[in-house]
C-alpha cells in the first residue's frame, strides 16, 4: 500500500499524479489517496523596502512557480496559475467520503482547478465534479470541511508537512523527487 497525500491547489501534487500512478502500476501497488491542506501563496509583489526575508520569499515563490511550469510542460501540461490560490477544502474533505476508486474524482478536481481555475470550495462545483466523475460518495457535503479538519490534524500528527506526501513501509517522503527511493521500497516488497 502506498499512501499519497494531495491537495488539488498544489502544482507539485498535480504534477506527481502521473508518475505516481505509473509507479503504482509497475509494482501493482494500491494507492490510498488522502487529503492534506497545503499552503499555497501568491508570489509576493516586489516591495519598495523589502527585508531580506521578504525578498527571499518572493524570489523563492517565483522560482518554484517557474520550475513547476517548466516540468509541467515536459508532461504536456500548460500550467497556468490562478490569479490567487483558491481554497480546495471542500473537495479535499469529499475525498474521504468516496467509496471505491477515487481516481476519477481526483483527476477531475485537479483538472478543474488547473484548467478552469474552478472554486473547489464551492458546493455546486464539487457536487458537479462528483456527478461527472461517476464516483460513489457516501459522505455529507455539509460535513466535508470538518472531516478535512480532523484528517488534517491526524496527518500533521503523523508528520506530514507537505504534498505530495508519500508513506510506504513507515517511511515518509514529501515530493515526487523521492519516487526512485519509493520504487526501491516497492521493488523490495515485490521481491519479498
Amino acid at each position, binding site marked *: 500500500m502506498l499512501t499519497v497525500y494531495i491537495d488539488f491547489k498544489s502544482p507539485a501534487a498535480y504534477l506527481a499524479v502521473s508518475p505516481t500512478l505509473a509507479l503504482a502500476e509497475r509494482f501493482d501497488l494500491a494507492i490510498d489517496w488522502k487529503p492534506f491542506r497545503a499552503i499555497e501563496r501568491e508570489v509576493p509583489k516586489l516591495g519598495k523596502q523589502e527585508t531580506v526575508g521578504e525578498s527571499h520569499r518572493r524570489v523563492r515563490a517565483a522560482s518554484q512557480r517557474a520550475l513547476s511550469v517548466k516540468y509541467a510542460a515536459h508532461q504536456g501540461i500548460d500550467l497556468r496559475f490562478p490569479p490567487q490560490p483558491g481554497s480546495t477544502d471542500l473537495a479535499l474533505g469529499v475525498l474521504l467520503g468516496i467509496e471505491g476508486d477515487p481516481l476519477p474524482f481526483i483527476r477531475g478536481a485537479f483538472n478543474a482547478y488547473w484548467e478552469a481555475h474552478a472554486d473547489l470550495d464551492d458546493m455546486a462545483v464539487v457536487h458537479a465534479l462528483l456527478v461527472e466523475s461517476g464516483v460513489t460518495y457516501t459522505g455529507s457535503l455539509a460535513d466535508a470541511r470538518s472531516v478535512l479538519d480532523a484528517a488534517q490534524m491526524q496527518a500533521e500528527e503523523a508528520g506530514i508537512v507537505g504534498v505530495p506526501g508519500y508513506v510506504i513501509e513507515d517511511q515518509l517522503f*514529501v515530493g515526487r523527487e*523521492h519516487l526512485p527511493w519509493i520504487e526501491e521500497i516497492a521493488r523490495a516488497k515485490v521481491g519479498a
Partner: protein
Amino acid sequence: MQVLHSDAPLIVYVDVKSPYAFVAIRPTLALEQELGMRFDWRPLTLDIPSYLGSAEKKQGKVVSSKGRSPRTWNAIRYSYRDARRYAERQGLVLKGTEKIWDSRIPNIGILWVMQTARDKLGDYFDAVYPPFWRRELDIENIEVVTACLEQAGIEASGFAAFASGEGSALHDELQPQFHPSGIYGVPTYVLGDEILFGREHIPYLRWALSGRQGSAPDIAYEIA
C-alpha cells in the same frame, strides 16, 4: 564576478552550512566527472535567520528560538531527517547543527580552491563538509579552514590574506546579486538562462548537458 555568467557549462552555488548542499556535493561532482566537464563552483552564503527564523540548541535540545512557528519547525525537522537519510546512503553522517553557523570563511575557501587548485575541489569538500556535519569542525575559525585546505593537499599559505582581501571582496560582490538574479538557496544550478534549485534537477542537467536527446526527465533524487 557576475552571478549568472560563466565560461563553464554550468555554475553550481553551494554553502557549507546547508544540509541540502551537503547531500548534493557528491552527486554533482559525479555528474561533472561523468560528463567530463568542469563546472564553475561558487559560494552562496545563506542568511538563514532572515527567512527561517533562528534557533540555538545545546546537547540536542532547543534552548532558544525566534520567528519559527510549529509548522516551520515540523518542516525543518523533516528537512533534516530527509537530508540525513540521503547522506547515510552516501555513507555520510549528518547531525543537526547546534547553531546557525557563519560559513563565510569555508565558502571563501571554495573561491580559493577554484583559483589555485581546481583539481582538488572534491578533496576540499571532503575535508570540510563531512567533518562539519559530524559537528567536528569550527568553520568560523580561519585556522581550522586553513588546516582543511592543507589536508586536501592545497597550498594554503596565502589563504588568510585572501580571505580578508580579494576572496572577501569576491564573496561580498556575489551576495547582493543573488535575489535580483532569481537565486535564493543552495544548491542552485545555473544552466544558461535556467536557474534550478535543488539536486532533484540533476537528471535534467545530465540530459541538457549531454545533448537533449529524447524526452526531458522529471525531477528525481537519484539513488545509487
